[in-house]
């Protein structure tokens, strides 16, 4: 257990740039863009003599009913979780390239000979990299998004307080704790959903003698083209789109958080009754964990496990360094 902890720590040391600094910088840019937008809005409104704040808003607030308040709270919640979108895409890219390099880079620079001179099993080495990609990277990304969301909320509050609006009243309307809990609850789900892609990318990383990226992309895409060309899926009464969506995209793009919303119809099953005034419900476990009912998810997990076992086998037998 201690060894495994240090293996994860090693991955973090090596990939601090991708795991930590990439989300932090993305979050920083996100906040900067927001601040610039606020400044632009303020300057424009001042120029045109439009008074957004002041007495008008205070008057509006006096006349607002419960529904309006809920909408204000919803807006604050959106501010809280919106940075996750940008950070999520960056994290997906980081995880994709991390997996592709994870079992290849040390063979190329021959540092595998150092790692293999230590009493660490190949299984533990590979699993530590799986855990880093499936749990560590998204957990860090989520924590960074949360910090970013809180800063975002703080910035809005400060700006609004210049317009004479009571900050605390506004913050009381939002649900920061629920937002944090919802974001965190998606990390394990992401791990399960991303597993086939992580497994496939790491298998390529472990097995390829050179250019793992080419293998990872070319094999599924060529298979897809063959399937489309010969209409093989017709044998199973499915269109070749099925193959592209369920094999090619799952093998490559599942590392992007939220990709399950696009690829899996079960993910959207429960979203029909979403409350417009409650944007957090998109992320709420009540909805997202509906994915657990999807065979797509569990077949993917199984495929991921097989692919990871293959990566471990390659890690043991490849001696090209």
């Amino acid at each position, binding site marked *: 257990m*201690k*060894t495994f902890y240090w293996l994860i*720590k*090693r991955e973090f*040391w090596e990939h601090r740039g991708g795991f930590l600094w990439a989300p932090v910088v993305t979050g920083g840019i996100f906040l900067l863009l927001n601040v610039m937008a606020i400044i632009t809005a303020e300057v424009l409104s001042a120029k045109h003599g439009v008074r957004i704040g002041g007495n008008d808003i205070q008057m509006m607030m006096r006349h607002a009913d419960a529904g309006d308040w809920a909408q204000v709270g919803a807006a604050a919640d959106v501010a809280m979780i919106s940075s996750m979108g940008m950070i999520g895409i960056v994290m997906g890219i980081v995880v994709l390239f991390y997996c592709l390099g994870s079992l290849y880079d040390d063979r190329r*620079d021959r540092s595998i*000979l150092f790692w293999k*001179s230590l*009493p660490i099993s190949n299984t533990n080495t590979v699993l530590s990299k799986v855990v880093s990609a499936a749990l560590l990277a998204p957990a860090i990304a989520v924590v960074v998004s949360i910090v970013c969301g809180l800063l975002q909320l703080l910035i809005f509050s400060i700006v609004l307080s210049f317009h004479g609006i009571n900050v605390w009243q506004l913050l009381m309307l939002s649900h920061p704790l629920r937002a944090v809990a919802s974001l965190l609850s998606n990390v394990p789900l992401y791990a399960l959903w991303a597993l086939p892609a992580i497994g496939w990318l790491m298998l390529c990383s472990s097995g390829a003698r050179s250019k793992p990226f080419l293998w990872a992309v070319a094999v599924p895409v060529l298979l897809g083209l063959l399937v489309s060309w010969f209409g093989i899926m017709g044998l199973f009464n499915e269109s070749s789109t099925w193959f592209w969506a369920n094999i090619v995209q799952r093998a490559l793009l599942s590392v992007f958080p939220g990709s399950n919303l696009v690829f899996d119809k079960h993910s959207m099953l429960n979203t029909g009754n979403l409350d417009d005034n409650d944007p957090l419900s998109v992320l709420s476990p009540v909805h997202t964990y509906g994915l657990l009912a999807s065979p797509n998810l569990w077949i993917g997990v199984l495929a991921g496990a097989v692919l990871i076992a293959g990566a471990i086998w390659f890690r043991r037998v490849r001696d090209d360094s």
Partner: protein
Amino acid sequence: MNAVVTANGLTKAYKNALALNDVSFRIESGRIVGLIGPNGAGKTTALKAILGLTDFKGELNVLGLDPRTQRDQLMEQVCFIADVAVLPRWIRVREAIDFVANVHPRFNRAKCEAFLARTKLTPNQRVKQMSKGMIVQLHLALVMAIDARLLVLDEPTLGLDILYRKQFYQSLLEDYFDENKTIIVTTHQVEEIEHILTDLMFIRDGKIVLDADMDAVGERFAEVLVSADKAAAARSMKPLDERQVFGKSIFLFDGADRATLESMGEVRRPTVSDLFVATMKGTYA
């Protein structure tokens, strides 16, 4: 004596070549063995087999374990340095020590730090900022702090200047080696290690062509400086090798009678490199 490594019929074939061809040998505890051979002779393959880094046919027993199936256990007792450039470039001195200290049960942190204190390395320095010599200092500090029974060195001083090379072997002898440890080393810089070796193994085309301890080598092989008038007589005794120096001939004999040799000229012990060159004649032809 107890054997550290026992190989029986060790064979390893790559696609188009036989890297190890039915090799058998035995390495005892407390020895420093030089495994010496020309490029592509199978040295590295033999070491890889011992370390469980490659598959092979035949029997191989290292410290009572099978390196193919019991690698994880084996690596607690075995250390290796495979030339200088294998430490990951991103790692810092501090991180390397922390990592090894926490994953290796036989690592002695104080010993490692004491060794590093004698170098210019600083805890925050990354491997990519170091010279080759400094990298090998760090690697050696890590390895020497591990109480292992077998140390395998594959060209450990390749590309180092002579100061680092001397220091490397000196540290090994003074601070590391004792009768409970065994060192297997391959290198092309034979003359630098010949005085520290206790055993010599020559490997050529996947076969062991010489396997003897250094005392036996001194008794078996002799070099004689013969003047021109006696050269024909010496030549008739089937020397391994002949070369000319200052109008005299130097003959290298394997197992020839001492008294006869002494009657022909000055007899001395051949250097390992001369012996190597004579044994490997025609390898690349």
